[in-house]
C-alpha cells in the first residue's frame, strides 16, 4: 500500500514539471515584457533594460523555466509584477478559501447526484426517473455563472436572504457552492444512473435474484457497490472542473480566492501571479486525483489485491 502511495507521489513530480512547462510556455507568448507592465507607459530605455535584466526576462525560455522550477523547490513562487509582493503570500491566504468552496460544492454534488442517480436507475421509466433526469439535463446545460446570477437575483436581491456583497461569512459561501455544485450534481446523477443501469444488467445480479434475494438487497447490496466504483473516479474529475470553475464563480460572487486572484492577475498581465495560481491549481488537482485513485484501488478488491501486499 505505502509503496503504491509513494510511487504515485513520485509520479506527481513529472506531471507538475510538465504543467509548469506548458503554462510558462503559454504565458511566454503574451505580448509585452514585464518591464513594460511594471513601468507602465512612458518609461526610460535604461530603466526598462535594467528591469528586464533584474527579472531575467532577457534570458532564453528554458533558462527562465529552470530558474522558476529551482525557486519553486525552495518555496519561492516569485514576485508579483503588479504590487511587488511575494506570490506565495498572496496564494497562501486564498488557497483555503477556494478549497473550501470547491469541497463544499463537491460534497453537494456527490450527496445530491449519487443518491438521485441510484434512485432514477432503480425506478427507470417511472416519474422518479423522468423528472429528476429532465431536471438534471437542464442543470447540466446551465452555465455556472448564469445559475449564480439567477440565484443571486432571487435569493440575495429579491428575497434578501443573502447579502449581495459578501463579506466572507459562512453564509456567503452558500450561493457560490450551490451554483458551482448543482451543475456537477446533475452530471454525477447522470453518470451514476448509467453506471447503475449497467450494473443492474450484470449476470451477478441475476445470480443474486436466483438466490432468492429481495429486490432491495439486489439493488443496494449487489448493484450499488459495483456501480459506485466508477463514480468515485468521476467525482475526482469533477473536483478539477469545479476548482477550475472557481475562477468564474469567484469573480461573480466577489470571493477572494485563487480564481479571482488569477483573473485579476490576467487583467494586470501579472505573469508570476497567473503562473503561481495555475501551479497551485494543478498541484491540488493532481493530489486529489491521486487520493481518489488510491481510494479506488483500496475499495475495489480487484485492484486492491494488486497494489496492497
Amino acid at each position: 500500500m505505502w509503496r503504491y502511495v509513494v510511487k504515485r507521489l513520485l509520479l506527481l513530480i513529472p506531471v507538475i514539471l510538465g504543467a509548469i512547462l506548458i503554462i510558462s510556455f503559454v504565458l511566454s507568448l503574451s505580448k509585452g515584457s514585464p518591464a513594460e507592465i511594471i513601468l507602465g507607459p512612458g518609461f526610460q530605455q535604461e530603466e526598462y533594460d535594467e528591469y528586464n535584466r533584474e527579472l531575467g526576462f532577457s534570458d532564453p525560455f528554458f533558462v527562465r523555466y529552470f530558474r522558476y522550477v529551482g525557486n519553486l523547490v525552495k518555496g519561492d513562487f516569485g514576485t508579483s509584477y503588479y504590487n511587488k509582493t511575494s506570490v506565495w503570500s498572496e496564494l497562501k491566504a486564498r488557497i483555503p478559501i477556494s478549497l473550501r468552496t470547491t469541497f463544499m460544492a463537491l460534497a453537494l454534488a456527490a450527496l445530491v447526484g449519487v443518491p438521485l442517480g441510484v434512485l432514477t436507475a432503480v425506478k427507470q421509466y417511472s416519474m422518479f426517473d423522468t423528472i429528476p433526469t429532465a431536471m438534471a439535463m437542464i442543470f447540466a446545460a446551465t452555465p455556472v455563472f448564469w445559475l449564480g446570477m439567477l440565484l443571486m437575483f432571487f435569493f440575495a436581491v429579491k428575497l434578501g436572504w443573502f447579502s449581495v456583497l459578501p463579506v466572507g461569512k459562512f453564509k456567503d459561501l452558500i450561493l457560490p457552492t450551490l451554483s458551482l455544485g448543482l451543475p456537477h450534481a446533475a452530471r454525477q446523477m447522470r453518470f451514476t444512473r448509467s453506471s447503475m443501469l449497467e450494473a443492474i444488467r450484470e449476470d451477478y445480479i441475476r445470480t443474486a435474484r436466483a438466490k432468492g434475494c429481495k429486490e432491495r438487497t439486489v439493488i443496494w447490496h449487489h448493484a450499488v457497490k459495483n456501480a459506485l466504483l466508477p463514480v468515485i473516479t468521476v467525482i475526482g474529475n469533477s473536483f478539477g472542473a469545479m476548482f477550475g470553475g472557481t475562477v468564474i464563480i469567484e469573480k461573480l460572487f466577489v470571493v477572494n480566492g485563487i480564481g479571482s486572484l488569477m483573473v485579476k492577475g490576467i487583467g494586470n498581465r501579472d505573469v508570476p501571479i497567473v503562473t503561481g495560481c495555475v501551479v497551485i491549481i494543478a498541484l491540488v488537482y493532481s493530489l486529489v486525483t491521486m487520493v481518489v485513485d488510491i481510494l479506488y484501488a483500496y475499495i475495489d478488491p480487484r485492484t486492491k489485491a494488486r497494489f496492497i501486499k
Partner: protein
Amino acid sequence: MSKKDLYKNTDGEKFIETDKLLIIKNLEVIYKTDKTTVHAVNGIDLELGKGETIGLVGETGAGKTTTALSILRLLPEVTAHTPHGEIYFNGENLIQAPEERMRDIRGDKISMIFQDPMTALNPVYTVGEQIYEALELHAPEHKTKEELNARVDEVLKMVGITPERKNEYPHQFSGGMKQRVVIAMALACEPELLIADEPTTALDVTIQAQVLIMMRELRDRLGTAMIMITHDLGIVAQTCDKVAVMYAGEIIESGTAEDIYNSGKRHPYTEGLFGSIPDLTEDTDRLKPIPGLMPDPTNLPKGCYFSPRCPYATDKCRSEHPPVHVDGDHKIACWLFAEKEE
C-alpha cells in the same frame, strides 16, 4: 407494468395433485420490443420426477435458457411476457405464485447455475460472503452465525475447494474454480431442483469433465432433480435419464435417454444433431452438419419450424404444424412418424 402483471395469465389451477416434481404445460414466452416480437418459447410441455435428470438439448437460441428462467420467473421484466402456460412445482403453479413466494423458492427449492462463471459472481464480495448470503436467506431462524459459517465451509469442501479460500474474491479464482463456487452456492440449501444452464460451456475441456463428474456425484448424493441445459449430446449421455430436444422454442422430441440414443426412431433434427458430432466408432470421413440456420424467432415459418432445413420435408411439412407421435415415453413431433401411423 409491474412484475406481477407480466406473469399473470388465467390458465390453470393454483394447485394440482401430482407426485411429479415439475410439470410444464403449454408454456409460451415472448419478448416484445418496440419493433419486433420474438417467439422464444412456443408451447412446450415437460415433466420431471423427483430426483430425475432431464437434458434440455438444442442449438443456441432454441429457447432453453428462456425456459429455465421462466421456471424461476427471472425473465427480463420489461420485455418478456408469458401469454399462457403453467409451471407446477410440487403441484404449485409458479406462474401465479406471488413474488414473495418465488423468493422463498429461489435458491432454496430451485437453484440455478449460470453459463458463465466469470460474470456470475459479484466481484466486490468474497465467495464466502456470497455463499453465506444464499444460506442466510433461507436458513431457519434458530440457526446461528457460526452454524451458517460452518455450512459455508462444508459446501466449499463438498465442491473441492479448501474452506480457507472463502475470504478470497472471485477474481482470485480460475474459471473452473469459480464454477465450483457457483455450484456450491446453488447447492448450499440442498434444493429439490437444480437448473444447470450450460454449466461447462465456458470452461476448458479438461475442467469440463471434472466439473461434470462432480455435479453428477453431488446430484446422486443429495438426490436433487436436475435440468441440464446443453447443446452437447455427450454431456446428456453422461448425466441424464431423460432428454428433451428443443428447436425454435418447441420440444420436438422427448423421451428417455435410451429412446433418443438407441431406438431406431428419431426426429430428423435429432438425427442431424447426432450427425454433427464425430463418431469415433464409425469410419466416416466427414461430419454431417445440418444445413441452414434456425428460423428467425420473430418470423417463424409456416408448418413445421424445422421444415426449411429438413431433408425429408414434404409440402405437408411446410404447410401444417406436425402432430406429436407418442410411443410410450418417447414423443416425436414430426409428420414422418404421424404418417406411418395412418
